[in-house]
């Protein structure tokens, strides 16, 4: 990630402000994650054919 966190904090502090960090619940889209994992094990050829079939529906 650019700029680094340290650089970003320095920039913000140069403007007389500060960064506030907060922890929030990590929400995972289980269905989307499963589909993504399945696709990654397919070849680009299969991914293309799947998209074209989906498009025809």
């Amino acid at each position, binding site marked *: 990630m650019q700029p680094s966190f340290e650089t970003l904090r320095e920039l913000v502090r140069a403007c007389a402000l500060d960064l506030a960090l907060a922890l929030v619940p990590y929400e995972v889209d289980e269905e989307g994650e499963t589909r*993504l994992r399945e696709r*990654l094990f397919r070849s*680009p*050829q299969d*991914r*293309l054919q799947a*998209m074209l079939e989906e498009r025809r529906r």
Partner: protein
Amino acid sequence: MPPATEPAFDPIGIFKALDRARVTYIVIGGLARVLQGTDELTNGVDIVPAMREENLRRLNVPLGELNARRRDGKKTLALADVDVLDLETDLGELKIVPEPAGTRGYDDLRRAASREHLGFGVRVAIASVGDLARMTSTLGREQDEPALRMLHRVAELDRSIGHGLEL
């Protein structure tokens, strides 16, 4: 057979026409993201051509074969005066992008691109996940946010698979 309202889209036919003329290019945009694993639908092929004069001359051949015409109605198909040559062809949309946002064009993308078989004798160079994320992020369009999130996740999963880890 697609419904009558569905615009034609035959990416393999477009790639075959480009390959017959021995055009050198890299696939980018929505189709490249799909080929890399994202979940989205697209109606077009976006390419970054090598900007050598010889390659640009070759590019004219498939554009003629595909009956390419500009979507803005202008007649010239020259790349000199446009950031993106946005074309309609008989086989679907074709965008020719000499220098995509956030990159320095073909030579920049070529280093990390991979060549993949798409069937029917077609093998194309596809921009890397990292470069696709860089381009999508630079465009800064709200509608690309889900695709950008997926690209980041694809990169994470690729790394974990590469290291034999299971995320």
